[in-house]
């Protein structure tokens, strides 16, 4: 019989494998125990514990940081699904704290105020897996080379405007498809242009997909948004402000879960879209001045 003390923890397969288990699911932002339970009951595959959803961060302004450990632990105690939490870009000490709290995934997130305008966290140094945002393939591969075990397209968080999520998913998908059609000797220049490591570029060209799971995020507010993102190639969906900034959160949460699973069946998505009450009001991304766009953070 094998002993559990002969085990290897924190390897790439274990970290990336965790994200594989989330595929086809919805990860929901929650700010308290009550919301976490609503998310779990609605069929969320994980919750993101944070003090303010992106829409409130945007409205209230100021510096946004990692959540209070007490708040994260209360949510961990309340639900059995995985609990994720966010750290500021580059803030490795916040990440060390979250690792001691045993959260299941860390999101090194542009939604919080960056702590380092040059470097991201060296995520290989942690046993806990990280998800990072990306607006294009090069950014995704740079994060993976730093140890990210999961990528989410950034979109524009806290807006309820899905257009940037669409742009980023199409961009990442398009750049992957372009690599798969290249001659081997063209991949060297592609790596230079993408500003990404050649080995990862070659791997993507050969497999036609990222080496890690790709979720989408930022502006998803309806079952139809979720279904569209899944059809554009997302492995799953993060919904931040879209659920708990809407009229009937429990119903909308369950509806988005159904639409994410049955994204190819418009009849089911239509049924899920009925009678959900008011959607989050939202902001058009075009109305947000560029310096205030969260997707611009990260490099």
């Amino acid at each position: 019989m094998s002993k559990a003390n002969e085990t290897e923890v924190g390897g790439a397969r274990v970290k990336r494998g965790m994200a594989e288990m989330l595929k086809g699911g919805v990860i929901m932002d929650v700010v308290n125990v009550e919301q976490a339970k609503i998310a779990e009951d609605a069929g969320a595959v994980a919750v993101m514990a944070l003090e303010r959803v992106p829409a409130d961060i945007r409205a209230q302004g100021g510096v946004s940081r990692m959540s209070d450990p007490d708040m994260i632990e209360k949510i961990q105690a309340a639900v059995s699904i995985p609990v994720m939490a966010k750290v500021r870009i580059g803030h490795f000490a916040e990440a060390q704290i979250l690792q001691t709290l045993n959260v299941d995934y860390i999101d090194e997130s542009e939604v919080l105020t960056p702590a380092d305008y040059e470097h991201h966290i060296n995520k290989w140094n942690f046993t806990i897996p990280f998800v990072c945002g990306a607006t294009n393939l090069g950014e995704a591969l740079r994060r993976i080379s730093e140890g990210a075990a999961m990528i989410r397209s950034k979109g524009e968080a806290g807006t309820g405007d899905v257009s940037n999520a669409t742009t980023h998913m199409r961009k990442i998908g398009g750049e992957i498809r372009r690599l798969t059609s290249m001659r081997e000797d063209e991949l060297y220049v592609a790596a230079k242009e993408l500003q990404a490591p050649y080995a990862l570029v070659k791997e993507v060209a050969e497999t036609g997909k990222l080496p890690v799971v790709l979720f989408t995020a930022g502006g998803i507010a309806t079952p139809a948004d979720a279904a569209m993102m899944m059809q554009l190639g997302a492995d799953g969906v993060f919904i931040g402000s879209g659920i708990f900034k809407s009229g009937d959160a429990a119903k909308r949460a369950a509806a988005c879960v159904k639409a994410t699973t049955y994204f190819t069946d418009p009849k089911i998505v239509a049924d899920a879209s009925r009678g959900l009450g008011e959607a989050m009001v939202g902001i058009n991304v075009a109305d947000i001045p560029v310096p205030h766009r969260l997707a611009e953070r990260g490099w």
Partner: protein
Amino acid sequence: MKVGVLALQGDFREHLSALGECGVTGKLVKTPSEVSEVDALIIPGGESTTISKLAKSFGLFDLISKRIADGMPTYGSCAGMILVAKSILDPASGQETFGGIDMQVRRNAFGRQTESFEVDLAFAGISGAPIRSIFIRAPWVESCGSGVDVLGSLEVDGKSHPVAVAQGRVLATAFHPELTGDNRVHRYFLEEVCNK
């Protein structure tokens, strides 16, 4: 034989690939008519609460339970193991299982994600090198009836916990062979369990 992979949520595509490497063209299933058409079923890794809620919402829950009870060969990995258990020690509110194996499982038994691990596991009935097994927030079998064959166990703090079990035509593993490229567990399911 048509082998379905339950595609409500989780790593169902990895199971489909593993079947393909064993020479079997599997089919992703997520509607009652699709589930009715297959001869055997794989329940993938994922979130067991999510999968069971979706199964209930879309009329799959009683259907799958009945088909397993009627002898449909079934294999569940991780979340799938939880779903083929007779009962859960620590269920989420309202969480039920399809049943199939006379056992009680403990969810997230090894701990949270930072405790997830790989290990070499001896698997009764599969010869050759031990199976490199990936456990991700995995369950274990807390207790099982005398009719259950324990195929693999892990020792934690001096106590042995079954992590691979079979009863009749139902197989369950707490780990994820679909993530490793080693298809011996899938072959075992197709060649041994399905032909019982």
